[in-house]
């Protein structure tokens, strides 16, 4: 045995293989806490949920519940509108913060506030501002000569309020991402464009847009998956009111499971969204790697 030690000092094929096996063991050893986490707290819950959702009757039941169908639409509207509007605005605003202007620099510091403040305080502030009786929004409208509106008591405006909050909260983060994206575009491209006498709009169309296309797609998809699972905005802003008409998937699943005691309905709600979610995730993994 002592001889193998000597031999391994000058690597030959079997020794290299041994080292390679040793490396695999070492790598897995360092990853063992992570692997344990994946097995026990990611794969097990997912398989558990799929197992609970195997009963086909669940889907017949929930799809005949009008609240569930309405919730699917709410989720599509909430995710679709808030993510797309937010991403578009972020892309546009990132131009503002990419300038050398002093005012824009000071603004970019303050601009982070909504992102830094936790969800609950922000949502509660919005909720009070939109209060039909004592909210500042209606007060300002009244002062300007318009009638107030019970924003959170009507379905369309309640969902709109959730969307507006989402945009307010997450616009800064994605804008910063696009600022970073713009900064990584080689300056020479713009200089060449200017020499060729292009307008700013043309430079945006033919330089910025193609260079940021991948980033924009990745960010939009990522944000959509995150927003698809959002619980706290709807829960705190509307609580599903009026009359359970403004739920999204996660708040409805919460209502089914923990308020009505129908755990299989809750599982069914998430399972319904799982194919789309997994598709998005696999596209993202392929793009990012």
């Amino acid at each position, binding site marked *: 045995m002592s001889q193998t030690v000597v031999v391994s000092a000058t690597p030959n094929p079997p020794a290299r293989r041994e080292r390679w096996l040793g*490396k695999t063991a070492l790598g897995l050893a360092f*990853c063992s806490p*992570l692997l344990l986490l994946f097995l026990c707290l990611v794969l097990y819950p997912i398989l558990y949920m799929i197992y609970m959702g195997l009963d086909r009757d669940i889907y017949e039941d929930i799809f005949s519940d009008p609240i569930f169908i309405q919730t699917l639409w709410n989720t599509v509207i909430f995710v679709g509108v808030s993510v797309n509007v937010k991403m578009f605005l972020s892309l546009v605003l990132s131009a503002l913060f990419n300038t050398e202007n002093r005012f824009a620099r000071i603004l970019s510091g303050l601009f982070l506030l909504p992102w830094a403040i936790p969800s609950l305080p922000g949502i509660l502030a919005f909720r009070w*501002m939109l209060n039909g009786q004592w909210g500042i929004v209606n007060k300002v409208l009244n002062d300007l000569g318009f009638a107030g509106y019970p924003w959170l008591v009507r379905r369309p405006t309640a969902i709109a309020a959730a969307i507006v909050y989402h945009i307010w909260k997450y616009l800064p983060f994605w804008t*910063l991402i696009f600022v970073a994206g713009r900064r990584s575009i080689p300056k020479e491209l713009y200089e060449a464009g200017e020499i060729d006498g292009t307008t700013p709009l043309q430079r945006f169309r033919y330089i910025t847009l193609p260079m940021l296309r991948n980033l924009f797609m990745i960010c939009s998809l990522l944000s959509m998956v995150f927003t698809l699972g959002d619980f706290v905005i709807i829960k705190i802003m509307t609580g599903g009111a009026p009359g359970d008409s403004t739920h999204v998937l996660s708040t409805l699943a919460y209502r089914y499971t923990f308020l009505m005691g129908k755990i299989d309905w809750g599982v069914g709600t998430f399972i319904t969204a799982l194919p789309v979610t997994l598709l998005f995730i696999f596209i993202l993994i392929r793009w990012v790697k």
Partner: protein
Amino acid sequence: MRLRGWRKGAFYGVCVLLLVWTVFPVYYMVMLSLVTWEDLFKPRLYVTNPTFENYYQTLTQGNYFVSQFWVQMYNSLSIALLTTAAVLVIGTLGSYALARITFRGSRTIQSLTLFTYIIPSSFLSIPFFKMMADFDLIGTKLSVILVMITFTSPYAVWILWDYGKTIPPDIDDAAMIDGAGPLAIFFRIYLPLILPPMVAIATYAFLFSWNEYLYVVLFLSGETHITIPVAMGNFLATDDAPWNILMSVAVLYSIPPVIFYYCFRRHLVSGLVTGSVTSA
């Protein structure tokens, strides 16, 4: 870029609009925390007679709604700190393996990491609840901490791995020739080098758990066991809740994250997404 004429006007117009849009809700939150109970129902754009009474009530637990304020702060803090510690251990170890060792299975681990980062946490709420009930962990901080670790570790591994890749491999080789084992390399060479992103992911993990609402609602109950955001949500259960006191809690609870974000914002935006900028 110098702006002239209507463009300059439009530029500053957009800036002012953006400033109002961004700051007004925050301003209003702070303002509400300074009004008296009577003024709460007379909406104004500014405070006429500001008072610190709400903060006093909150900090001395002088009102029924904030009677457990400090215990709840402690709960928020302890869950966030324990999560951060665990995430740092898991993240540094895992990222070391992915960044410094070539081994079979590393690609699978990378995919799983990314998968766990992206999947919305609420989607697993029901199986997690069942699991925690099966293991009799409902009502314990451990249940919340385990879930927080699950959803923050992937990001930690990803960021640290991304950074660890950039350290030249010669350093490890040189140490190995000097007779250092993998553990020595990990502790003496790797850890000191990845300190900057460790600060960032510690912030991330801390704030993620500090902000968590759903899983605390699911797993913890009772005034003395819940965290601050859940206590704030409980104000909504009654119609006569003192929103001025609620807003003082909101401001106090927002201060640590705001400080953290402003200190570490540069690190927080890096990583996953900016990585895809350069590769695009």
